């Protein structure tokens, strides 16, 4: 059963850290957003999209966690016997996604907040802010990719 436990710790790292990162990021962006709509309620739609951007890290974390749970048979199947080595490999696979998700979520939230302020001052620039905010996500995407490649071979 030790292998299974390692795999589950991996799932926890992935969903947990990614989720924390996104929650903090979305909250940071949300604080800026609610400040903006108190003055300019008509910008709600644009600001909401920017606020949603740091939410993806949590989704990536959730995604990998589900993949791990499927692999060990906890979701949609019967629990398989996981060798210790495979369990540890699955845990290792979760680390890039979890840690990068945590930090990139927070930093993307900060970036989103400043794009929200940009939108408040010049609403026509909101898509440029959107693109700049998406830059931060690049590294979360790369980490997810590495995690999935590791997961595939685990």
């Amino acid at each position, binding site marked *: 059963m030790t292998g299974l436990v390692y795999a589950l710790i991996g799932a926890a790292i992935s969903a947990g850290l990614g989720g924390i990162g996104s929650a903090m990021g979305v909250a940071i962006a949300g604080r800026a957003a609610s400040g903006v709509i108190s003055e300019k309620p008509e910008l709600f739609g644009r600001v909401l*999209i920017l606020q949603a*951007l740091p939410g993806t890290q949590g*989704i990536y974390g959730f995604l990998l966690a589900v993949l791990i749970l499927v692999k060990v048979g906890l*979701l949609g199947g019967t629990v398989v016997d996981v060798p210790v080595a495979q369990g540890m490999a699955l845990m290792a696979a979760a680390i890039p996604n979890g840690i990068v998700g945590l930090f990139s979520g927070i930093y993307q939230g900060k970036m989103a907040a400043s794009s929200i302020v940009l939108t408040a001052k010049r609403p026509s620039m909101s898509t440029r802010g959107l693109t700049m905010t998406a830059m931060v996500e*690049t590294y979360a995407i*790369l980490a997810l*990719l590495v995690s999935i490649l590791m997961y595939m071979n685990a």
Partner: protein
Amino acid sequence: MIVPVKKIRLIAPNKDKDILVRSIQRSGKMMLFNELAGSISSDDQQHLKRIEKNIVILEKHRKKKFFEYHEVDIDQFNDSEQEAQNLLDTADALVVENEAATKEKEYATKQIELLTPYVNLSVAPADLIGLNYVRTYVGYWPTQNATVITDKLSTKSAYVETLLADDVNQYVAVIALSSNHQDVYDTMAANGFVLEKLPELTHLVADEVALLEEKISTAANTIETNDVKLKELSDSVNLLKMYYDYDYNKILKQKVEVLATEKTVYIEGWVAEDELEAFGAELSEMLAYDLEILESTEEEKVPTVTRNNRFVRQFETITNMFSVPDPNEIDPNPVMSVWYWFIFGIMMGDVGYGIVLITLFSLFVKFKRPKGALRQLAMIFAFSGVSAIIFGVIFGSFFGYSFDLFKIIGSLFGQTHWTSVVVNPMEGDGTLIMLVASLVIGVLHILNALVLKVILEFRRKNYVEALNSGISWILILLGISLYVLDMIDLIPLGIVGLIMIGIGAVLIIIFSGYGKKGIFSKAVSAFGGLYGASGYLSDILSYSRILALSLSSGVIAFTMNMLAGMVSGSIIGYFFAMIILIVGHFFNFAMGLLSAYVHDGRLQYLEFFGKFYEGDGLAFTPFTYDLKYIDKINKEKK
């Protein structure tokens, strides 16, 4: 395709000044040289605000209609001023009356609230003021202090009349002798007495309350009858909307700076070359004028007009968000649009989501009729639905369920081995194949950008730049590709590849320092040029996001289906499964759409445009009707 733009001067007799401006606005084909001068005067602004306010109020009285489309004929647009002004005055009078009545109602309600505890006062409040021997206080104190206060007051020969008492307060009228009234007041105040300032009525409080109540009911009646009238008027709210647009555009027209000589007026501006004839013809219907074509000077920024087919035109909004193309470079839209469409499809990569994209956004465009950039974006999403379906078939995914189109078709013809699923990114080697495919797409995308760079530099006769930053990198990228293909035993041309890489590197080393003096600075430039390779590496790796986004929407769709599958089984289970499916897929669709839109854009802006596109052009914004409420003005005469 970028169309040349001509600088022109229109000359007309003095008396035709207004007609000239009106005709230009009506044609909507000329961009004025001078921007509209000054701001809108406060009188005009107030008039606009008044119209707007009445529109809002009339809208409230009307049944809400989704999807309203408002189209008017130009004659109707220009000739309805008087009628609309009358409507505005009528509506405004009713609204003003209503506002006054509401205010009166509110005031009366407040007064009644104040007076109600004192209705039992048997003297008119005015009669209590200025008496010789006694002083009267009207107010209330806390009920719990009542006995204490009355005891104390009885020793000071003050008379207390209780008007009303509830659990909290006791409302009283206190009569004290003039000689010690201050003492009486202080005693009461120390125990929580609050003096009430009653209005100086010459009649009883009870009568005043009755009067106020009558006022309230009159006001309510007024509001009710006015509301009925407003409701009748609300049917013609479109007239007011048209009036707003008409009035605003009339103001804009007055802001146009028209230059004048003794007998003529003239306006300068830009017109696209291919529209020049139509523009002239349209103008000659309205007035006699003279059109001169001017030479534009070097330092003048010429606006850019792009003409593309219906598909490519929509994607111009993506480019313009980055920067408007300069007239002297290649219009990136025809090429970029295809790439954007293609990559968007891979990122969504689901037949179901593709169908939703097409239906949702075509319905949105058809019924809501958005204008400008929003319309273009909706059209882009609708078009990209097609590529999403194509890649959905290739990946074998329908709302996350596995789906094999050709197998279904094949089973109709008795063929069991047909399949349309080329690669499933979520299974086995599929992920790796898709990763490689994403990077290959990246290489092709970047090569395409470099080819455009070479064409652009050749057109400008910068052959050195074309060799240095275009052809060299094309050789290197192709060389590396050939070498890799050799390594995996596909095409045995590795040696050719190596030679190409070598030539590319040599080109960079030779031409990077072109024009630089001294061997040292040439060497530094050459090194810097070669160092660009790291940039190309990260650019190509950046395309791995195509796989990641495609995978993430695929896995989440799959997860939702699995969760729904786990709860279904009983009737209640199926109900919950439906909710999970609808909410889950909606969420995944929305997030997938946002990610694809943003990240596809990023690939175009950084990786693609970064290689050749300069932008920094001036958008062609012709002087035309600026409409807020009306969707379209029909210019054709019936």
